[in-house]
Structures are given as structure tokens and as C-alpha cells.
């Protein structure tokens, strides 16, 4: 069965920092632009202290939230 499209994400590999992830996950963008994009999509990591620290288990989104249909009542 084919999965429906979901918001894409990645995880950090050991030793990777944000520029590494930006280059790997958003290779079509300049690094600075990719970093800004990652920051805007991963506020859950940048709002914690220390901001932007990557833990090995973190989910890192590589695109903006998808627009999804709202479930209807009944």
C-alpha cells in the first residue's frame, strides 16, 4: 500500500551540525538560505535552551507544514 504524502523530515547523523544537514537535506539551496529555512521549520528545536542544539533523536523537518484537510464532524 502506498503511503499518503507526509511532511518530510530527516534526522541528524552522528557528527552532523546544522550546515551539514542543510547541505544534505536541502542541496538545491545556498547553505545560508537552507539554514534559514530549516530554522523556520524547526522552531521546536530553536526555541529550547540552548536554542538550536541538535539531539540525536530529534525529528528535523525539511519542508514547511503541509496543508491538510480538516476532519469533518459526524
Amino acid at each position, binding site marked *: 500500500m502506498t503511503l499518503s504524502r507526509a511532511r518530510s523530515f530527516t534526522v541528524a547523523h552522528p557528527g552532523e551540525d546544522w550546515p551539514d544537514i542543510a547541505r544534505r537535506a536541502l542541496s538545491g539551496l545556498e547553505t545560508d538560505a537552507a539554514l534559514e529555512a530549516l530554522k523556520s521549520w524547526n522552531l521546536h528545536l530553536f526555541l529550547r535552551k540552548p536554542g538550536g542544539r541538535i539531539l540525536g533523536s530529534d525529528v528535523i523537518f525539511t519542508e514547511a507544514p503541509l496543508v491538510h484537510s480538516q*476532519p469533518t464532524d459526524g
Partner: protein
Amino acid sequence: MDLIIRNGRLVDGTGLPSFFGDLGIRDGRIVHVGGRIPGSATREIDAAGRVVAPGFIDPHTHFDVQLLWDGQARPALEHGITTVIPGNCSLSLAPLKAEHRPRLVGMFQQIEEMPDAAFDGAFEWTWESFDGYLEALRKKLAVNVAPLAGHSVIRLWVMGDAATERAADADELAAMQQLLRQCLEAGAIGLSTSFVDVDENLQPVPSRYAHFEELDALAAVLGEYGRMLQVVPEFYATDITLARVDQLAELSLKHQIPTTFSPLFDSAAVPDNVARVLARVSEQMARGARVWPQVQTRPIDISFTFEVASLLFAFTPGWYRTMRLPREQKIAALANPEHLDGLINEAEPDGNIERFDTIRVRAVIRREDAGLVGRTLGDIAAERGSTPARVMVAISLANDLQASFLAANLGHNDPARVGPLLAHPMVHIGASDAGAHIQSFSTYGDTGYLFSHFVRDRQDFTLEAAVKKITADTARIWGISDRGLLQPGLAADVTIFDPAIIDRGDEEAAFDMPEQGMRYVRHARGIEAVIVNGELAWSAEAGYSSAHSGQVVNA
């Protein structure tokens, strides 16, 4: 025959329609189901008008510590729970080197709100290995225990302080795999990990430093045994939870293991959360992955005093930090107008008083404040020309921090949404957290609430379907092969109850922890008898028995 339960309504755990008849037990096993059993037995119970069901299984508990001094897991047993699964959320009491005990205690106290008294002198640490822990447990067990091994302690054992600093190297990964293998050989039912928890210094627990490669390597070991992976996802953020569902599905398919995540809450604040998560779970299940969301039956209610830092304040850091101060410093801070103004601005930004408006005063120690009990902070604030947060602090200070408050129905409290959710075929009823958060709410009685609220009152389930959810389904999900059904040859775990009465009792404060420590409990209503491996462990007539027939069970 050792025990015959006569004339009961047999709800056998299959979900099929119930029927009337006798149940026979010999040597801890069920030997006869249905019909009339001729002759007599050493003990007989007349169950006329009562339901006879398999013992209930609670898949998300933190009884790890309590079981060392209370092998009956009170009061879970009296609610009909005959098997508990501790070791959730990456935390277990083994494997654990002696030098790491303080760190484990700190994590337990922070995450599960276990008081000092639970660890200080309440039991003797005699083990480091998982096998040694089980040996200590077996001495007193009156319930069955299917324990998980915690990822955080496995990481701590292998990496020491580096467990909260960096990724594991290849040698450390291999060592963790071997350690997990030893736990599974000893009897662990699986591995637990957490993506959200913090330690007593509010720093991430060791499991959160693990890269996916590490979890994959450990899941490979689980695959050798077909055992469970339990995780705590970022349940407050739908998109992240969806990503976790996909990760778990990947591990489940690759290693052919069952996985479960807990909790999944319904929330008015994020009304589409459950629907989106269940849609993804359904897609992954259709691919053959086993990703079971655990859903609790009870609404979210939190009681608190200013004596201890409550999880209710986890998202208002100023309050949380203040509540974690040593007692005298805390009183001084709350009494300091400047500090209090800062807290009020955080709690009631721009005059928005909704956050604390509906919280009720639960108990006070000052006689002159007795009239406040049961009233909302909003009501008291209006009377005093103040705000809810200010009157809460004022009442706390006036009562030497011992006033308690109840924040009720914080979420998961719309029965029209929660009922169908619980009945969903891909929902695993659990997430009770029994034995944890003991000073914030009672984690006992969720099964009684299931029957009273969602079977009897709302009829979201048939009786048979509800029993199946918390017995046979749970056993199958976790791979517990010899429990969960009334079937000849299976272990004789049996709960007898009155379907017209079964319920959870009122939440009350009990002082039955070591050194008279306080916790919130609920006693059972409508449970008649609870039988564990053929022995009567609890009855409404005689209370807890001296039987210690509980076993360590695994897949």
C-alpha cells in the same frame, strides 16, 4: 480442582458474546470453561450475577520501585489488574550500575514524581543486572509483571557520563546490543525509549541523545526475540508524532517487531490531532507495520500544591523554576512582590486570566480558609478584587504551601470524542501511568472508568468488546501468549465484577507510601474478586490476601 467459579457470566476475552457457566482452575491454570463442572473444589466462588473475565493487563506503568515493597501494586490489583508492564519511558531499575543509582533516582523523581521516600530505605539495592532486579522482585509478587528494559539506563551503563553528551561509537553500540540481549534473555518484554523526557536538572534523558542508527541497532536485537519497542513521542505536536509513527513503522517492518507509543490524547486545543495520527497509523498498519497508539480512558485532571513542582507548570518556566526552589527560598520568592509580578505576567499575560480561572481549591490547612474548598480561583479572585493566579499564591502562602488545588478536565475530556477513539480497532487502551505522578493525580481505576463511562453509560463498547481490549488484545499486542483469555491451558488470571456497579472510586489522598508519603489513589467499585495464577489475591469481602502468586511473564 483447586477453584471453581460457578454460575458466572463468562466474558472470555475473545470479544464473542458472553455465556453462562462455570470456570475451573487447577495448579494455577484454567482447566475448564463453561457448562456445569461436576463435583467440588478446594474453594468455590458463586459468581451469579457477576461477570467472570480474564485478568486485566495494564501496559503502561511505573511500578518498578513500588513493587519492591508492595508486590500487590496497590491499588491496581483491586481494580482487577493482574499483569502490569513497568519500565516504560526509557526508565527501568535495571540494568543499572551502583554508581548510576543517583542519576536514575533523579530521573524517576523528575519524570514520574516519585518522592525521596520511595527510594530512601524503602528497599535494598541488591542488583545491577536485569536478572538481579527480577530476582529481587520475585520475592514479593502478587501481580504478574512483564517488565521493559529502559533505553536511558542501558545507555548510561555502557557510556557513563557520555550518555548525555554524544552519539555512541561502534563499540558502544555493540555493547548496548549485548546488554539488551541479556535483559531480554533474563525476561524483559521489550525496550522503552523516550523522545521528550528530562532529568532532574531539566536536561534531556540519555535516550534522547541516541541517533536513529542506535535505535535501529537496538530494534534489531528486539527483532531477534520479536519483542516490543515502547516510545514516548512528542504527543503535544502532531507533525512530530506523525514522523514518529513513520519511524516506528520503519523499525517494525524492518525488524518484524511490535511497537507502541504513548500517550495519544484528544485535545480541544488541537482538534484534528487524533484523526491525523490515527489516519497515519492506519496507513502504516495496512502495510503490515505494528504501531499501536496507547490511549487512556480517564480525562486529564491534575492536583497540585506548591510543595512540589507540578507538571502543570512545565510550560511556564518561571513558575516551574520557582516551585523547584528549596522550601524557604520558595516561600521568600512567592512573597516577594517583584518576583510575584513576574510570575503573574507569565501566567496571565495581558490580563488573560483563563489559565487559572477554573482551578478549584481542593484542601487547606487553615481553619479560616475552609470556606474556600471547592470554589474556583476565578470566583475567589472576583470576590477579592484580584486575579486567579494571585489568589492561588496567596492561599498557598497562607496555608504554608500545603493548600492543594485541582485543575480538572484539562483535556481528553469530551466523551463523545474519547469514546469512539477508545473503541477504534487500532487503538490500544493503556497509558495509565500507574505508579507515577503520584502526587498529581490518581493513576488507578482507568479500567473501572472504561466500564462505567464508556460501556454502561455511553455504550461506546459492548461489555465483551471492552474486556477484549484490555485483556486478549493487550496480550496479543505485547506477545504475552498464555494470558488474556479464559481458555483451558492458559494461566488462571481472572477478574470477577458486577457490570452494574463497576467503576473507579473518588480520588482521595492516601498516606501509604514509605515514611507515610502521600499519593492520590482511587479504590475500586464493583470488583468482587481478583485471581492471579489461580490464587485469590483480592476480594471485596476480605481485601488483599497473603497470596504471592504473581510471576514475571514475558513474550
